[in-house]
């Protein structure tokens, strides 16, 4: 079977500064991969490069998503093709109603795929369901996107969006940071609910706690713009216990 995501020797530069320096990663359908790594190692850069942010220049290598080369696709085309990025720092959009935003997003994706628009009732039902599962107040639907949301609410709102948009591949960038213990569990459940054997996940995190709920198929360490170590869940436990120090030793 084809990979969901196949990244080969990816090099990404911001303002001529190389951040990703030849990164390889293959994610199969239905797999959940965790990426850990020190601050500033390039994890968010990878997420942005996947989503197609301006200024993240691909200077080498390739990204193939579900059989398509991402290089020439606009962010909205990648989304319509089934790619989702949960932001490390979700953006506030003043004045744009959360429910309206989400419905516009869903319908834009459906339109791009040639599927008819969703009707208002079905849409509301599905958002309400997701909100309930994440124990989010329905009033958040009427508020502006992320504006005035608490840190944890913003993160949970990303998961609500993921649940409504039903992507093929979700890249979650530190969605667990800033969550309280109960919220962390809710978010993990939100992710697990979407695991159907076909949908894939790349979960960027600093902590083993989230991974305890998710049981990742693979754990990778991104350091200095490359994947420097891969393993199973035991790697996450080792990192939690020892920090990143042992990697330098083994590299040396």
């Amino acid at each position, binding site marked *: 079977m084809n990979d969901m995501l196949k990244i080969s020797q990816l090099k990404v530069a911001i303002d001529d500064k190389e951040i990703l320096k030849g990164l390889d990663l293959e994610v199969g359908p239905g797999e959940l991969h965790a990426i850990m790594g020190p601050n500033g190692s390039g994890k968010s850069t990878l997420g942005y490069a996947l*989503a*197609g*942010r*301006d200024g993240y220049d691909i200077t080498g290598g390739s990204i193939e998503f579900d059989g398509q080369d991402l290089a020439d696709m*606009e*962010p*909205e085309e*990648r*989304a*319509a093709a089934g790619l*989702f*990025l949960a*932001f490390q720092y*979700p*953006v*506030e*959009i*003043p*004045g*744009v109603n959360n429910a309206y*935003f*989400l419905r*516009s*997003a*869903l319908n*834009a*994706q459906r339109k*791009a795929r040639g599927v008819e628009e969703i009707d208002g009732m079905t849409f509301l039902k599905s958002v309400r369901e997701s909100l309930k599962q994440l124990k989010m107040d329905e009033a958040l639907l009427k508020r*502006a996107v992320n504006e005035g949301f608490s840190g944890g609410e913003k993160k949970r709102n990303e998961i609500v*969006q993921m649940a409504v*948009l039903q992507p093929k591949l979700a890249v979650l960038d530190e969605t667990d940071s800033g969550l309280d213990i109960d919220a962390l569990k809710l978010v993990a459940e939100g992710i697990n609910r979407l695991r159907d054997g076909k949908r894939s996940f790349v979960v960027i995190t600093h902590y083993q706690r989230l991974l305890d709920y998710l049981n990742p198929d693979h754990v990778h360490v991104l350091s200095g713009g490359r994947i420097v170590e891969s393993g199973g869940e035991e790697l996450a436990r080792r990192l939690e216990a020892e920090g990143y120090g042992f990697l330098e030793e083994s590299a040396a």
Partner: protein
Amino acid sequence: MSALIDQLAPESGLPDDSHAEVRRRAQARLMSQGFPDPKTEAWKYTSLRVLEKREFQGIGQQAVPRCALPFAADVLAFDNGQYNPDASTLPDGVRLEPLDAQSLETLDYAGREDAFAWLNLARFEQAWKLSIDAPLARPLVLAFATSDDFSGAVHPRLHIELAANASATLVEWQHGQGEGLVNLVEQIHLNPNARLHHLVQRQHGELAWVQRTDVSIERDADYRFHALDGGGRLVRQDLRLDLLQAGAHGEIDGVALLDSRQHVDYHTAINHQVGHTTSRESFRMMADGTGVGVFNGRIYIARGADDSHSDLNTGNLLLSDSARINTKPELEIYAEDVTASHGATIGQLEDSALFYLRTRGIPTQEAMALLKFGFAAEPLENIENDTLRDWLMVLLNEHLGSF
């Protein structure tokens, strides 16, 4: 400058009616002070050259547009500046009468910056007193429209008084056509405990529109202003709130959308004359093409007006390289125990917000439209009445479709 005097205020043409004395006094002030010029601070960014080039003639023969509103309302129609009783309905609790001469005798305005108020006082065709004596069940609409062939200069004057405990929603529907000038003066007074929600929806093509709205607010009375301003060739709005007694509250919210050949200038002032008064203001301007916006928001807290609170924020969005917005918040505080804050930003559409929307699948054009809408809608969101808020939001959305 004297060209404007010749065109708008010729010595000869003063009506000789029961207001003759007041008119002569106003004319004399206007002659001695003149119209604003580029050195007049309050008109620094708004040139009157557009007016100088115009020849003002008749008020036109063609029919004026009639308002079609998505809510039940009583309408007072002012066609080409004149009250039209045939197109109007007066509900119970509302009286419209010619203003008595006395009310005008003691009126005073400042110098050159107030030239249009003096001009109105010298030249008004009709001056009306609108009395609202009780809580009104449905909105009262002032429909100001001019016809396609309107090329006159008219000076409507309207004094509005809300009795103690009265409450009303007043919607000004302003749709000007033609190439003339409307120079409207409104004087609004809220007696104790009165409530007025005042909405202005303005859309003037080539028309020049100068409006002065002075609002005085007594004890525990509450005044709220909302504007959705689609601009005009030259629009100047002076809005002044005087909080006269403890418990008085005033709010100004507005958004102005400007495209090429449009100039809108808002000068707002909120004066806390006594203590224990509160106000807030939020204003947005968005300019595309060669549109020009001017916003000057002044908050004044008088000596002794202790324990007063105000907050002013303005935001501006430039959508083209040749659009311009001049914005200036001014705080003047002479009292103690007050809180007053202001913030002003001028910006372009945020890249990070645009990217966020696009990662959710929303195409670039649609994402930009959403961001513009979000920016412009903010001051209208706190309209409590759902019907009125939805009405303005729909209009805003339609308007942005053309940006």
